């Protein structure tokens, strides 16, 4: 079976400074991995590399059979990306965002709305802004969920909601201590 995420010696350099040291990992359906970075920015970049949003300077990233450098749209279709920032906006804005995503992802709006409502109901104890961000990411049928600067306890909740999806979370070591990035390392990250 093809792993859902394959990262081989991916690293990221900007202006001659290595922001992400080379890392490799393989994730299959239902598995989880976490990557800790020294700064929040580095953690964000690592998550975006795994979600096919940022291309690594060196190394390769495959999501299922798709090379994120050559086929980013196909790869992104399999990924639910949870950004670090919560969704700021009213209920109406959220509904408009769902409609927008239905059009861009070419999905049925009713299905997307029902799926988002289910996720919101399951995450009702979370802060609404963040729950909405997670709902937007999980609403399409995704195989890989990537969390940027994952918040405390969210990975476990998502794993319960989508047990068959692989989860990759990044976090920063200097993250606020009120939200310690305690995430299970199910897969060894080298």
């Amino acid at each position, binding site marked *: 079976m093809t792993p859902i995420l394959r990262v081989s010696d991916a690293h990221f350099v900007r202006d001659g400074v290595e922001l992400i040291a080379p890392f490799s990992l393989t994730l299959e359906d239902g598995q989880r991995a976490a990557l800790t970075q020294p700064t929040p920015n580095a953690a964000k970049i690592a998550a*975006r590399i795994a979600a096919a949003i940022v291309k690594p300077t060196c190394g390769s990233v495959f999501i299922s059979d798709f090379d994120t450098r050559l086929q980013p749209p196909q790869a992104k279709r399999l990924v639910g990306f949870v950004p670090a920032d919560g969704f700021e906006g009213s209920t109406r804005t959220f509904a408009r965002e769902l409609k927008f995503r239905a059009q861009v992802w070419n999905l049925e709006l009713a299905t997307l709305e029902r799926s988002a409502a289910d996720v919101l109901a399951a995450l009702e104890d979370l802060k609404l802004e963040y729950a909405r961000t997670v709902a937007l990411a999980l609403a399409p049928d995704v195989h890989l969920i990537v969390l940027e600067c994952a918040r405390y306890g969210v990975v476990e909740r998502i794993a319960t909601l989508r047990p068959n999806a692989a989860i990759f979370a990044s976090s920063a070591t200097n993250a606020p201590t009120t939200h310690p990035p305690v995430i299970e390392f199910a897969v060894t990250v080298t």
Partner: protein
Amino acid sequence: MNALRATFAIARREMRPYWLYSVGARILLGAALGTLDTFRFGQGLIVMMILAVPLGVVAGLEPRIRDLTYFIAPLYGRQLARAYAVTAATAAFALPCAFLVANILSVRVLADSAIYHDIGFSWTSIDQSRGAPLQVPTEWLVAGVALAMTVASVIASLVGLSATLRRGLARTTYVALACLSGYFSFLIIAATAFDVPFLLGAFAAALLLGFLALRAFGETLARYDPVPY
């Protein structure tokens, strides 16, 4: 079909209240200049000719290109570029088109009292093939200039889009390049205005410039990495 649906969804999302205010302001300015020109020939037209291109460049700088939502979406760079182009070009259209419509309407409303009728058919050129003077009504001249400025401001907005992903000197250079390409498009159209084959060639050259700018922007978007600073 999916690509078109996504393109229009992004364009609609970018046509947010700020964009609407910006277009509204352009329409008001264009209408005011168009009406003003009816009373004193050139007063509105020259201001419009000066402002249309820079405002076209500003229209190209307005889209929220760095919005992470667009990079999460399963889209190619060219699809994103097309959507931004629709938004930018629509805003760029507003000033010259509002000028033209206001001008035509005010000339019609004012009828004989409009200054254009006093000027009469004073704009002439020599038709090279027949050697006879070619008379151009002033209204046509104004309409021609407004149409040429519409093309020029759209070209400027398309080139200006590339400045959005750049910073510092590169951004300033792109803004200057966008202004130059807008005025250049206008000049080649104006210089060939009385010769139809050359005029068509000038329009084709201007459109080619816009197409190349959009293609380059699509490539830049495809290569762009939304990295936090």
